[in-house]
């Protein structure tokens, strides 16, 4: 378990990490998501004791990183952004060095062999790290983090610079490790976080702006819930019928598509209008040619966050507000459903 409380790191007047708090439970895979320079690596470096925080504290399995650094570090395996490899060593020498460095008590031979098998570096075991490809170096870096079988793994962009096949392999490996370890993984590849992590924390400009499951995030992070729909029917009739669908806030006409017409329908927050919409069009025998959510994908949101020209403070505020609203909306739906049942 990792607890981070009000962590702040200042470089001069620049706040790299600004009052971050979160908890990672045992056996959880947490994804750190954020643009470059958002403070992901800094947070990880503080967690692992490489940097010291300006204020706040980080506790790993009950050991404060600052007060009991050695015990805390024993709980940790860390793969920094750039794997800390000695290029003049062979993989064998390197892993043995890390083994000595971490004062591991497990039997040396079998332990290292098991790790090599796990990350698939057995065939380069006797080669100089200098001569290894990026993918192999990354794997040696992961192997290094696994030595001593630490309970917490902190992986800073573990798949960066790998080819697609290797990326999938590493993701599978992380998912597998997540069953027995607590993992924090940072990435700016959203699909990766979505594929691997149980929970995602989005960091921007040193602050946590979202903390949720990947699915909830893609739903809640979006500030546009409208749907674009193309219906084969007479414009006026369809438009007025759409306005009467339960949960619809507004309808606007976009343009004609041959005989059909495109509309943008915005639902009231928290309503799913797809079913009533379907009912409406079947009743009137208006074929739906297209129904598409205008919801932002994680990709879109991320791009907006990383875009320096857009002031993200509004988005951040709306994200927070939306989270609260969506919780309330769920209650409302639940209540209305109950009422309907009663009727």
């Amino acid at each position: 378990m990792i607890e981070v409380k009000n962590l702040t790191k200042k470089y001069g007047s620049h706040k790299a990490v600004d009052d971050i708090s979160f908890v990672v439970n045992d056996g959880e895979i947490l994804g750190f998501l954020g643009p470059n320079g958002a403070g992901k690596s800094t947070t990880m470096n503080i967690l692992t004791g490489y940097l010291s925080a300006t204020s706040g504290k980080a506790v790993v399995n009950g050991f404060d990183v600052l007060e009991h650094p050695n015990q805390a570090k024993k709980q940790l395996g860390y793969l920094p952004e750039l794997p800390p490899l000695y290029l003049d060593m062979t993989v064998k020498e390197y892993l043995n060095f890390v083994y000595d460095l971490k004062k591991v008590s497990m039997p040396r031979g079998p332990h290292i062999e098991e790790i090599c098998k796990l990350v698939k570096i057995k065939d380069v075991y006797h080669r100089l790290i200098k001569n290894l490809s990026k993918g192999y170096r990354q794997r040696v870096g992961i192997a290094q983090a696994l030595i001593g079988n630490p309970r917490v793994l902190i992986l800073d962009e573990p798949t960066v610079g790998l080819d697609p096949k290797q990326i999938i392999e590493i993701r599978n490996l992380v998912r597998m490790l997540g069953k027995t370890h607590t993992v924090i993984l940072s990435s700016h590849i959203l699909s990766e976080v979505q594929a691997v992590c149980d929970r995602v924390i989005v960091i921007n400009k040193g602050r946590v702006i979202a903390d949720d499951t990947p699915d909830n995030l893609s739903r809640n992070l979006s500030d546009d819930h409208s749907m674009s729909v193309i219906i084969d029917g007479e414009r006026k009739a369809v438009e007025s019928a759409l306005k009467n669908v339960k949960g619809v806030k507004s309808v606007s006409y976009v343009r004609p598509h041959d005989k059909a017409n495109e509309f943008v329908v915005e639902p009231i927050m928290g309503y799913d209008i797809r079913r009533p919409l379907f009912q409406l069009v079947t009743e009137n025998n208006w074929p739906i040619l297209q129904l598409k959510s205008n919801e932002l994908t994680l990709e879109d949101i991320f791009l907006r966050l990383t875009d320096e020209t857009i002031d993200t403070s509004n988005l951040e505020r709306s994200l927070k507000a939306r989270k609260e609203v969506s919780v309330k909306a769920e209650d409302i739906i639940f209540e209305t459903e109950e009422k309907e049942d009663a009727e």
Partner: protein
Amino acid sequence: MSAVIKRELKAYFTSPLGYVILAVLLLFGGMNFSLVFANGYADMTYVLGSMVTIIFFVIPILTMRLFSEEKKQKTDQLLLTSPISIRAMVMGKFIAAVTFFSIFIGVCVIFNLVFQVFAQPDWIVFLGNVVGMLLFASSLIAIGVFISALTESQVVAAVGSFAVSFFLMSLNNIASLVNLDFVTKICDWISFSARYQTFTQGTFDITNTVFFLSVIAIFLFLTIRVIDRKRWA
């Protein structure tokens, strides 16, 4: 700590650096030895005395990569996130460098054994020489370790520690130029070469020993502080 010592010692021999340093030390050591030998003396004092200048150039090369390279390759992240203290890390590197240098001292023992075959070298004087040389070199190594921790560039580390050690060495020359009594006194007090000279006469002077040990302790302590401070920057 032993893991760090082992790695650093190995690193000297997996790169050309270690071999080049040893080659230089052995070449000039052997040259001086044969000159002294050919002139009919059986005293290592002359051999080691003329090695001082060579050692000056060699020690900064020996220590330049110890910390600068770690920082440049980001391998310091591994060391600093491992459950070892910064003190153990600094001590490990220092001991590794001193151990490497001791190979040269070992060769000096062989030289003296060769003298032994033909003459009666004074082993007490030799011991003084060796202890003095070891203390003197260790002080330079400690300075080199400290400067290496200040920079990411090996070249800057080498040039920097060369400049500092050369300044400390030549203090007594500077002292003779200045006509102020207290300046001369201070310079003489700090001067490495003057303190090293007493050892070569076979006298074991406790003040000089303490002086060199203090220099080592101070610079290693400063190294620890520099590395620790970086985490707070």
